[in-house]
């Protein structure tokens, strides 16, 4: 398979026979141990993250107790640190991001696997890779200086359209109505998580047995009927896993959100108002913090760490189910 590689042809084999004896068991043992330690480094680092951050955040946890997660009062001068508004903000931004990113990602994955001509496929994948490789801070810069000013009028239009509709007139407005708000942050995060959801969904679609798709077409199904009848039923748990992985990424997304959400510690249902997420608060306020304040910000990091790990574990469970089934076919 790799026989024409120059590194394999002659050199190593020749040296084994020229009288140079391998130093023996000790080398093997040392190498194995070092490799094992390196393999376990992942577990060690995860453990250290949990310990070190929790330890430093402890003053805030012990001072606030459960209020850290249930209170909306984030008042630095009075040393009150209730993070509910930020947890809420994280959920709102992630929800907006998923609402836009999930249909688009599924569409993209279908486009690549079912519609695009083979020659075009590689280019589309390159474009999506490009989307994934743009740094978060560049999305933030563009969103702040180009998109937010351009969208402000649009937000104002929506707000005045729904002015007299109950419920919607409190959701689709802002106080103050600004270009940097939950929706702007959510839209940019949607763009940022689309590549990861697309690539996992694409892998899941690739496990659908070709025979089932061909059978559907042979029975006279249109392409859409084939997708609904053969592709979706087979991929449901994989799509759920992909969406959860996207959710985990969205919740942890920091820099673009920190630039685009406008920083406000108030808990509000108005989507065009400035807000804050757990990650954006840490990024925006860490520099000016000290003592318990800083411990509280690190505490937000601990909460974020635990939430993303839980979501990651559940998501992997869903994706692994598809992989097992795919391997079994």
């Amino acid at each position, binding site marked *: 398979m*790799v026989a*024409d590689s120059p590194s*394999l042809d002659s050199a190593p*084999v020749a040296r*084994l026979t020229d009288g140079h004896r*391998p130093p023996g068991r000790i080398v*093997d043992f040392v190498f*194995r141990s070092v*490799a*094992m*330690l*390196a393999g*376990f*480094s*992942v*577990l060690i*680092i*995860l453990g250290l*993250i949990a310990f*070190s*951050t929790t*330890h*430093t955040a402890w003053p805030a946890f012990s001072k606030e107790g459960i209020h850290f997660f249930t209170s909306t009062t984030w008042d630095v001068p009075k040393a009150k640190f209730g993070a509910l508004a930020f947890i809420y903000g994280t959920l709102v931004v992630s929800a907006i991001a998923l609402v836009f990113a999930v249909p*688009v990602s599924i*569409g*993209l994955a279908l*486009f690549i696997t*079912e519609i695009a001509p083979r020659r075009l496929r590689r280019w*589309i994948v390159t474009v*999506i890779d490009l989307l994934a*490789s*743009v*740094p*978060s*801070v*560049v*999305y*933030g*810069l*563009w969103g*702040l*200086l180009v998109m937010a000013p351009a969208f402000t009028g649009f937000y104002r239009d929506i707000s005045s359209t729904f002015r007299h509709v109950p419920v919607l007139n409190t959701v689709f407005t802002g106080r103050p109505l600004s270009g940097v708000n939950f929706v702007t942050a959510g839209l940019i995060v949607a*763009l940022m998580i*689309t590549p990861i959801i697309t690539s996992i969904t694409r892998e899941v679609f690739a496990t659908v047995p070709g025979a089932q798709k061909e059978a559907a077409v042979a029975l006279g199904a*249109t*392409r*859409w009927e084939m997708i609904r009848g053969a592709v*979706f039923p087979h991929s449901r748990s994989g799509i759920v896993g992909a969406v959860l992985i996207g959710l985990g990424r969205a919740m942890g997304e*920091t*820099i673009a959100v*920190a*630039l685009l959400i406008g920083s406000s510690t108030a808990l509000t249902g108005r989507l065009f108002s400035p807000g804050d997420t757990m990650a954006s608060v*840490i990024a925006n306020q860490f*520099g000016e913090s000290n003592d318990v304040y800083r411990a509280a910000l*690190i505490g937000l990091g601990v909460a974020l*760490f635990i939430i993303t*790990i839980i979501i*990651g*574990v559940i998501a*992997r469970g869903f994706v692994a189910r598809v992989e097992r089934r795919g391997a079994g076919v």
Partner: protein
Amino acid sequence: MSVITAPVPVARLGPAAKHRSRALRNGLATSAIVLSFVVVLVPLALLIGYVVSRGWHLFGYAFLTKEIPTQITPGPGMGPAVYGTLLITGAATAMAVPLGVLGGIYLSEYGRGGLIARVLRFFAEIMTGVPSIVMGLFIYTAVVLHTKNLNAFAGALALGCLMLPIIIRTTDEMLRLVPAELREGSVALGSRQARTIMRIVLPAAAPGIVSGALLAVARAAGETAPLLFVLSPVYKTNHSLFHGGNTALSVQIFNNASSPYAASQQRAWAAALTLIGIVFIFTVVARIFTAVYSRRSTAA
């Protein structure tokens, strides 16, 4: 875009109408799917267009090398940040790649399908999902608080933690693609396992591993969040990894983006162009390695 609709109305229509409605649905769904590609392509094109058009006239040799001027002073200068990005990312790579490759070797060559390897693989995947800002907080609490020293090395540790699981996973996957015959041949000739791995298995998988490592480097070079708490602002190039504060392109973009001064915003755009350039170069080189690798393995 509706994903699943009930098929009931179709059944109620006559044959011709039924056929038309099915074709219509198919057409609608197909255009929605094509549209999703456009929806992604447009913002990406706009973003790259803006970065290039707003960044290019400040970009140049002077921009890459000169010191960073004060916020209100117009003109080029991002030298310390360019140097900082390369220094921090380079140091992170020097730490994460050997450790990650060794970890991948353990998973693929020693752990194989066993319980320990499966657990470690699982946690490596989980670790790739840990938010980058948490890595920054981790290095801040575990290192900076004890050394009381904000320097490039702390930044490198944070980025290294982000790269490590990616490199472990790619190495593991690439090594598992190496055919067993190569290992058996080497062992049959009398070489021990460590030697077989280092001389036979690893070289065979090298292009794939290099490609994965480059992608990890590209991701790390663009990161901002983990650097926020472990670097201190400097405006002159600091060549030292351990002594004194340092800065990076990403951090400069973050700070200048929200600056009210046009001069700073200008530099933010040019810095964004530089950063995207660096990231794309690594990504393209990684793709070339992948292409070489796949051509070689399909040739035989």
